[in-house]
C-alpha cells in the first residue's frame, strides 16, 4: 500500500516557507552556555519544558509497565540507573543530574530517556 497514492505522492513543490497541514509550527531557540557548570547548563530550558518532558517520561514508564506488568522494570530503573550516572563520561552525568533536578523527575528516568536510542535499537 505504501507504493500507491495517497501514501506515496508525486514530488511536492511550493511547500517552503512552511505552511499548511504538514507544518506544526516553528522550533524555539535556546542558548546553552558551555562556560557554565554542566549541572546548570540546561536549567532554564528545562524549566520551560518540564511538563512535556514529564509527559514523555510517563509514557515511557507506561510502555515499560506494559512490557513487564509488575512495574518491576521501572523500580529497577529508579534503583539501578542513578548508581551508574558517575560512570558516564564528563560532562554528561552532571548535565543529566541538572536536567533531572530541574524537571523534578527521578534521575534514573531521565537517564533512561537519554539512553533510549541504545535501548530502542532492539
Amino acid at each position, binding site marked *: 500500500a505504501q507504493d500507491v497514492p495517497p501514501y506515496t*505522492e508525486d514530488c*511536492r513543490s511550493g511547500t517552503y516557507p512552511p505552511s499548511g497541514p504538514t507544518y506544526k509550527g516553528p522550533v524555539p531557540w535556546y542558548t546553552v*552556555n558551555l562556560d557554565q557548570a554542566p549541572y546548570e547548563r540546561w536549567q532554564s530550558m528545562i524549566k520551560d519544558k518540564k511538563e512535556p518532558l514529564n509527559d514523555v517520561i510517563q509514557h515511557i514508564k507506561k510502555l515499560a509497565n506494559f512490557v513487564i506488568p509488575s512495574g518491576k522494570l521501572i523500580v529497577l530503573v529508579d534503583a*539501578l540507573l542513578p548508581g551508574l550516572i558517575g560512570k558516564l563520561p564528563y560532562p*554528561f552525568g552532571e548535565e543529566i543530574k541538572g536536567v533531572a533536578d530541574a524537571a523534578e523527575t527521578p534521575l534514573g528516568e531521565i537517564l533512561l530517556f*537519554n539512553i533510549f536510542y*541504545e*535501548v530502542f*535499537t*532492539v
Partner: protein
Amino acid sequence: CTSVVAEDSSGKLYHARNLDFGLFLGWDVKNSSWMITELLRPLVVNVNFVRNNKTVFMSTSFAGYVGMLTGMKPGIFTLTMNERFSLDGGYIGVIEWILGDRDGSWMSFLTRSVLENATSYDEAKALLSKTQILAPAYFILGGNKSGDACVITRSRKSCLDIWELDTKDDRWYVLETNYDHWKPPLPIDNRRDPAKKCMNRTGQKNISFTTMYDVLSTKPVLNKLTTYTALMSVSDGKLEAYLRDCPDPCVPW
C-alpha cells in the same frame, strides 16, 4: 529518518533531515498517530551552544536529551544520525556497559562530543568511523567544500562502510534512511526511492532549502513518525527546523 547531503552546481553543500521516531511505541487510535511522536514534538528545541560568547555549534534536539542527533558546526561541518537496526543492537552494548565493559561510547554522546570538539570535517569523519559505540548507527556528515559529504555505516565495534559524495561520478547527493545503502530497503518501508526520485527530479542546479524541504515534505518521506524537519547550510551558518505533521491519508512509517 531520512537524511540527505547535497551539493549544488556551485559546490555549496546543503544538509537536511526528517527525524522520525516512535514506531511501535503506542498507537493512538483516536487521533491516528504514534503517541511518542506526538509527545516529543513539544520537546523539540534549537540550541545554540556558546563558549566565551561565541557559537561553538548549533543543534536541533529534544529538551532533556543532552546528546545530539542533528547539528552543525558553522563553517566546518554538519552532522545527522539515523537509526540502524541490527540483531547485534544497542541493548547488548548497554548490558555490556552496565556489566563494566565501558570501551564503547554512547551514540548521542559521541555526536555531541564531535560537534563540540572536532575542528574539521576530516577529524569528525575519523572520530565517527573509528570510535567504538554501544549501538549501530548511520552518521551522515557534510563538510564545507565540494565533495565533502559521506554516510558512515557503523556496527557497534567497527565501521562497515563510508559512502562518499562523488560529483565526478554524478553522485551529487548522498541520501540515507534506515537501511544499508548497498542493500534494498524493506519493501514496506521504502522511503529511499521516493526521496531519490524527488532529488533527481529537482536536479543539482536547483538545490536549495526550498527544494530540500519539498523533498522532505513528500509522502512517504514525510510520514506519521516525522517529528521535525531540519535544514542546514554550513557555509551560511544557517540552521532552520520546523515541527511536522502528516494528517491522513499518511503512511504510518
